[in-house]
């Protein structure tokens, strides 16, 4: 039978080809304890996870809500704080 590590690597490459980075990270994480003698798989896993972190961070920055409070003093417009 195909070993778990090869199977997960294949599924991860498939997911990467489809740009499904979250699925790829999941497949690589499921066999991370078998990466001891495969540093290239560890690099691949770390790269995918870093990319996901970057994407999450970008999403937060792009969707930051800016709250603006208008303060009126004596009926006159003032600067926004």
């Amino acid at each position, binding site marked *: 039978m195909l070993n778990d590590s*090869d199977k997960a690597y*294949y599924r991860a*490459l498939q997911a990467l080809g489809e740009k499904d980075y979250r699925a790829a990270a999941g497949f690589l994480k499921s066999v991370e304890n078998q990466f001891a003698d495969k540093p290239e798989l560890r690099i*691949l896993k770390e790269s*995918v996870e*870093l*990319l996901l972190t970057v994407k999450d961070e970008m999403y937060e920055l792009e969707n930051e809500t800016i709250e603006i409070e208008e303060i009126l003093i004596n009926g006159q417009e003032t600067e926004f704080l």
Partner: protein
Amino acid sequence: MSRLKTLRKLESTLESFLTRVVEAEQGRMNSLSSVDTLDEIARDSLKGRIVNNRLGDWFANNRNTVEKKQLDMSSIESIGNLLSDIRSGLDPADPISRKLSDQIDKWREEGIIPRRKLILKMSKKAPDEDFLGKFMDFMGREKELFDSGEFEGRHLLSILDDVLKSAEAKEDTMFLHLAGSMIYFLKMNGYKVTPFAKRLKEIENIRLRGRNAK
């Protein structure tokens, strides 16, 4: 450079790196895809499912790649082992299964796929002097069991079911030996024995776990 710009640059660099990894591994992916499909077929075959059509399709899609040795050695070895697993589950009475078995045999004979490696290991302790005697004892007791008339008029498959139940319930390893022997005899005569062989293996594993726990 703003934080967002830096992140975008990092995102693009990582995506480009991963795309190149996938491109560089395309050959390996093709190999793994071929082995993965065959692996699924072998798993279903071991569950007793009919896999003729899928195996036929697999041969049609992968014949050239395998015959022209376009796969790496580890994939070829995996394919050889998986085809051996599948072959043992094919029904010799069915013409399509026979054709597929012949194809597997042909590949083996031509050295396209390796034969399954079978490593026999013997314990280091001194050989038991009465080893042959023990074997003869099993054979003798097995004959006695059949001579007792307990199984008279019943089909061998139904007797095998009883023997496996005894192997599960009793400490006497003679029942394991008898079940193995009956399974092999049935297989030699064209019966589908995969589910029985699987049961025997499970009983052996349970015993092994029990022995290791002691």
